[in-house]
């Protein structure tokens, strides 16, 4: 089963990459206020149900994919 994890810098955490992207977009003439840069991880996980897949991917996030001090994450399971 495929799952997609989106990892984001938590609100209030300094995100210099996001700031650099925001400035570059402005220089191109786009009216943007706020850009944050995170990362996407796609995984194929063995699971018999979407719920089981979600639990497994949640454990992956807690143990490796995100650092809870600075990052939040969302898991989407594609059925």
């Amino acid at each position, binding site marked *: 089963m495929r799952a997609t994890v989106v990892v984001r810098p938590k609100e209030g*955490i*300094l995100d*210099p*990459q996001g700031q*650099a992207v925001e400035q570059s977009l402005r220089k191109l003439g786009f009216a943007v206020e706020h850009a944050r840069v995170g990362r996407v991880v796609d995984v194929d996980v063995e699971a018999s149900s979407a719920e089981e897949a979600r639990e497994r991917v949640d454990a992956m996030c807690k143990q*490796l*994919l995100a*650092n809870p*001090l*600075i990052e939040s994450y969302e898991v989407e399971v594609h059925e």
Partner: protein
Amino acid sequence: MKPRVAVIQFPGSNDDRDALWALKALGGDASLVWHAEPELPDGTGAVVLPGGFSYGDYLRCGAIARFAPIMDAVTRFAAEGGLVLGICNGFQILCEAGLLPGVLQPNASLSFICRDAGLRVERTDTPFTSRCEPGRRLVIPIKHHDGAWFAPPELVEELESRGQILLRYEDNPNGAVGDVAAVTNEAGNVMGLMPHPEHAVDPLLGSGDGALILASLLDAARARTLLAI
């Protein structure tokens, strides 16, 4: 007696040989230990996690290296009170492994910074700073892209009250919270720092101040080893 120091070599470490050289020059019996080893050498008195780009800094700096087989042995060694020093990437690994508080984030400038840094020694009654006089100023080079130490305000307060912040930048180069350049664990036997003491052990190279940190570690490792005999 020469204290035995294990310098861990990860794929992508690049300051391992400098650390080895510096520790030997200061009277340590230092040797390289490959990351895939299951155990530390017998009689290890201290462990050094050197700088570099372990596992290509994939995902987050230090996030993958903490799963190296040797890290189980390092974690056990630390839990038994063994002295562990993480330099730069080694600091990042110790934070990701949960052996040290906080995390290292990209520099606020997003630039790789390579220059001497002035540091304030906050405590001298520790295994890592015992050779420094109180109030001593150190000049030790930094060279990193992800050196901005971060912890939430309540954690920083706890660390300050327990005296776990050992070095601060005089002129914050990277956006680290509280100007923090080095922290220890609660027990005080594990320290991580972003500056590179192994690059500052000979005045010929600009500064010898790093020798104070490494010689402090060797003193403490020697004392611990003698106690164990």
